[in-house]
């Protein structure tokens, strides 16, 4: 790892001021993604600003929503009584990510900002438009088994690896962002970007901003939720496909529904058209099958990831069925 300057920020204002001073500075929270990338030479900041002393660990019930601070650890969120009771989907998704050790270290802010696990991005001897704009996409014609089937461009077919973000997308979460002169809020589903012509930009956080936390609206799904994660081994692996499903049922009628996919796109892939199709209808196996088929109608796969289209459809069927049966 190339050496760097290390600074600790005592307040959010100080953190932002330090960040503004140096174009090649970076925040560090849990370090589980950044330290890894620095060891690989994928990232090489001149300056690390340790933000762990900032007062951003709170998890609290507010008017109409739950606030989760950017520095709350993934384990603290997953195990928090309020989250388990009011946002079980988020708890499930977090617990299916990484390992117990990593979840103790990883933070909510870092999880939102984590970079793709695409092998071509991680290998600095390979072309990658995300790491080195203009160098090409190694995955396009390469080994693309883990890659996107939705929203990709000829410049990048990487996927966003987070589980937490898929649940947050389904739960209509909002990201709270700190700026030098105030705050702004952005819907989580608008936070991450599609690759388009600028795959080097993962998300819409600006160079002078910091994530303060997320707000998740209270909902009426109760226990009718499921986070289904399909992977190469049963634990401690990134998703091939994952599904976050939430249902509000009135008897057998689907009053409300939320669906988002992970492991299939450069951002959590919210299925709003499928939600609209299902809303108001009677829950039955044929309908769910039809919804799943519609969901993947526009998927476009590559040489090694064609299986993901079927896998996504089947996973949607399973997740919705299981969500409807939870009690």
């Amino acid at each position: 790892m190339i050496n760097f300057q290390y600074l600790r920020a005592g307040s959010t204002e100080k953190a932002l001021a330090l960040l503004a001073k140096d174009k090649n500075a970076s925040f560090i929270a849990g370090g589980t993604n950044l330290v890894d990338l620095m060891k690989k030479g994928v990232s090489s900041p001149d300056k690390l600003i340790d933000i762990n002393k900032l007062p951003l660990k709170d998890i609290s019930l507010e008017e109409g929503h739950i606030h989760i601070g950017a520095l709350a650890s993934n384990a603290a969120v997953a195990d928090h009584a309020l989250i388990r009771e009011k946002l079980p989907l988020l708890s499930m998704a977090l617990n299916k990510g990484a390992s117990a050790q990593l979840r103790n270290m990883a933070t909510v802010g870092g999880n939102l900002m984590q970079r793709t696990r695409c092998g071509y991005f991680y290998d600095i001897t390979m072309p990658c438009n995300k790491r080195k704009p203009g160098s090409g996409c190694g995955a396009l014609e390469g080994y693309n088994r883990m890659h996107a089937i939705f929203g990709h461009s000829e410049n990048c077919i990487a996927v966003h690896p987070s589980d937490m973000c898929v649940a947050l997308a389904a739960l209509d979460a909002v990201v709270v962002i700190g700026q030098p002169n105030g705050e702004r809020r952005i819907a989580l589903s608008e936070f991450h970007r599609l690759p388009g012509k600028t795959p080097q930009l993962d998300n819409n956080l600006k160079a002078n901003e910091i994530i303060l936390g997320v707000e998740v609206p209270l909902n009426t799904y109760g226990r009718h939720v499921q986070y289904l994660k399909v992977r190469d081994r049963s634990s401690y692996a990134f998703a091939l496909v994952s599904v976050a499903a939430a249902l509000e049922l009135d008897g057998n009628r689907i009053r409300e529904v939320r669906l988002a996919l992970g492991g299939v796109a450069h951002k959590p892939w919210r299925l709003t058209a499928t939600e609209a199709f299902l809303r108001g209808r009677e829950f039955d196996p044929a309908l769910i099958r039809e919804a799943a088929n519609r969901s993947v109608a526009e998927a476009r796969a590559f040489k090694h990831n064609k299986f993901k289209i079927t896998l996504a459809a089947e996973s949607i069927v399973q997740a919705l069925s299981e969500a409807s049966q939870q009690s």
Partner: protein
Amino acid sequence: MADNKEKPGTPSPGRRNFLRDSTLITALSLTPGAVLKAASEKADERFAELFEKIPLRLTVNGQAHALSVEPRVTLLDLLREQLKLTGTKKGCDHGQCGACTVHVDGERVNSCLSLAVMNEGKEVTTIEGLAREGELHPMQAAFIKHDGFQCGYCTPGQIMSAIACIREGHARTRDEIREYMSGNICRCGAYPHIVDAIEEVQKTGGKI
């Protein structure tokens, strides 16, 4: 952040480029001794900065340390190389195997992905800190009793993780143990015996 922004070929005037553009040649022609000497004498301010060490206080297995470390040193390397506590193992060095698991302020973490300097003021427990007055920790004893290892390389990490797993309340069933121990890979495949050991310690219900 830094690597997430468009930077169309405009080199930043930082220390890194200074090194890349001019110092590299010099550095290669100097012996390591000369480099360190130049650094310590601050013959070249910018050069010295590359070797900048910062103070770090932390407690390891009950013993307080006042150290001086480069920011890039991980907690794992600090433990093994500076403090000579080689019980904690380096498997993958990328958070993928769990061999480096230690407790920081009571929580299990992967010491390979933690910068040592980020642990200022914290309490670290390693496998060397478990035995009391020559008596093995119950989890160590259970691993021996149940033959919870073959080569033993993953074992310190497994044991640190196992203790935390019970303390967290995530060892109520064999399935739960398997799920919450999945961050510790065992290449020898001693998993069933590891689960036996943890289950037994959990069932005895003592304070661990």
